[in-house]
């Protein structure tokens, strides 16, 4: 039975993702640098999930499977670096600005 937990999703740049860009987006460095989600220690322990485990994230727009890592984010928030995982989760509605909402989206985490 899958467990669900609700979070707020923030996507953004990281130094590793910036450096890995030049190695090519099919490089293992780029996949490593973008294929994870960060969760606070409190939330990780509360949900009883191990680091390194793959979890499924779901927003109103799409879903992505990412590796779970503990990170310095406040409880209740998840951080995903810019890349294919983040793109699958954000919507294309720009509310007349040209800019999709890519920070502050409600997101569910599914743990199998």
């Amino acid at each position, binding site marked *: 039975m899958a467990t669900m937990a609700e979070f707020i999703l923030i996507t953004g740049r990281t130094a590793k993702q910036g450096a890995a860009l*030049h190695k090519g987006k099919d490089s293992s460095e780029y996949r490593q640098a973008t294929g994870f989600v960060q969760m606070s220690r409190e939330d990780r322990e509360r949900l009883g999930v191990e680091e390194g485990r793959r979890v499924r994230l779901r927003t109103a727009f799409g879903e992505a499977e990412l590796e779970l890592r503990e990170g310095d984010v406040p409880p209740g928030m998840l951080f995903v670096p810019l890349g294919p995982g983040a793109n699958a989760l954000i919507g294309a509605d720009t509310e007349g600005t040209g800019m999709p909402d890519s920070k502050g989206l409600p997101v569910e985490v599914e743990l199998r």
Partner: protein
Amino acid sequence: MMIENVVCPFCGCLCDDIAVEVEDNRITAVKKACASGRSLFVNVHTQAAKPTVDGEEVEWPQAIDAAVRILNDAANPLIYGLSSTASEAQRKAIALADLLGATIDSTSSVCHGPTTIGIQSQGEPTCTLGEVKHRADLLIFWGCNPAESHQRHFARYSALTRGKLTPGGRKDRTVVMVDVRPTLSSKRADVFLQVRPGYDFELLNALRALLKGQNLDVDQVGGVEVARLQDLVERMKSCRFGVIFFGMGVTQTGGKHLNVAELVALVAELNAYTRFTAMPMRGHGNVAGADCTLTWQTGYPFAVSFARGYPQYNPGEFTAVDVLARGEADAALIIASDPMAHFPRRAAQRLAQIPTIVLDPEMSLTAQAARVVLPTAIYGVSAAGTAYRMDNVPLPLKKIVESPRPTDEQVLDWMIERVKTCSA
């Protein structure tokens, strides 16, 4: 041979103090650049590359023919990217859009497009990074993380650098970070205000109220105690020269351009007390140049359509994510950017369905899915050109290695000539 004072073309800092050692047309050492900049220089290709059409290698004239045929056959072509190419090429891309009646947009629309919209309603209290270096004693970083995304910003322009009126460097400056989470940057700040996601507007609005001397009948706003906001207002009023650098934490959360307008209004009001400015942390090396060149050529900074034969501007209508997600664009020319890797899935899916032409030194995800791939030289490494720093100061990019590849500007010129002969 050691080449000094090279401008790194990767991010909006455009650091112009890089030293690059070149032996036999190969880059053997890079000094002073950060990890991202170094990676750009050392991974550069200098070998020839042939253009491809439907995956088959062809000669340049055939590739240009195929590209122009796609664009001429389209009812609503989109030209997008521009932020990692030189302004000389940006200008040609605009000329091509004009000839074709195309929509043209830059990566600005998905980074600081809302900044431009906000500034259009409020004005722009700005300065150069030189002024920041020499004068600023209060640095506020709002919704940005320079330690990761602009790694030499602190050392060259802001927190750590020593200037004429800030000879003590870090000691002479107060650094404030506002963000939704602790970051590498916030760990180096004197004051860190952790705002709840989506509450930037409320926080800025509260600061404006406190600046006007109003009492707030709450204890905290967006997760930050009012006493700490009052303290920030006092620091802002009493500094000699303050600046708010802001990033996508402000432009990509709910409110978007309204957040920026509120931030700029606060900065404008602070000028009743002291000198205060605001500056967006522009990401790609020449994204500021894309805004400048488009404005200079069309009157508008991004989201421009030439469909009626004259430039029209409308974010939300002529922005790339929107024209793709709504299925309006029926062909695309992507210049030096990778929307397949960065756009929301619905927009990227449309891009995969329509014929696409890519001008890029790299085999990006967009290039991998494109009908026509035109491999070009890299401005700042294997081609010379002009780029605009985040403070809109233009800097010359050097050619430090030879490349047999043409520049974006040359390729766009060939396309323009071909379009003209087709329609003659």
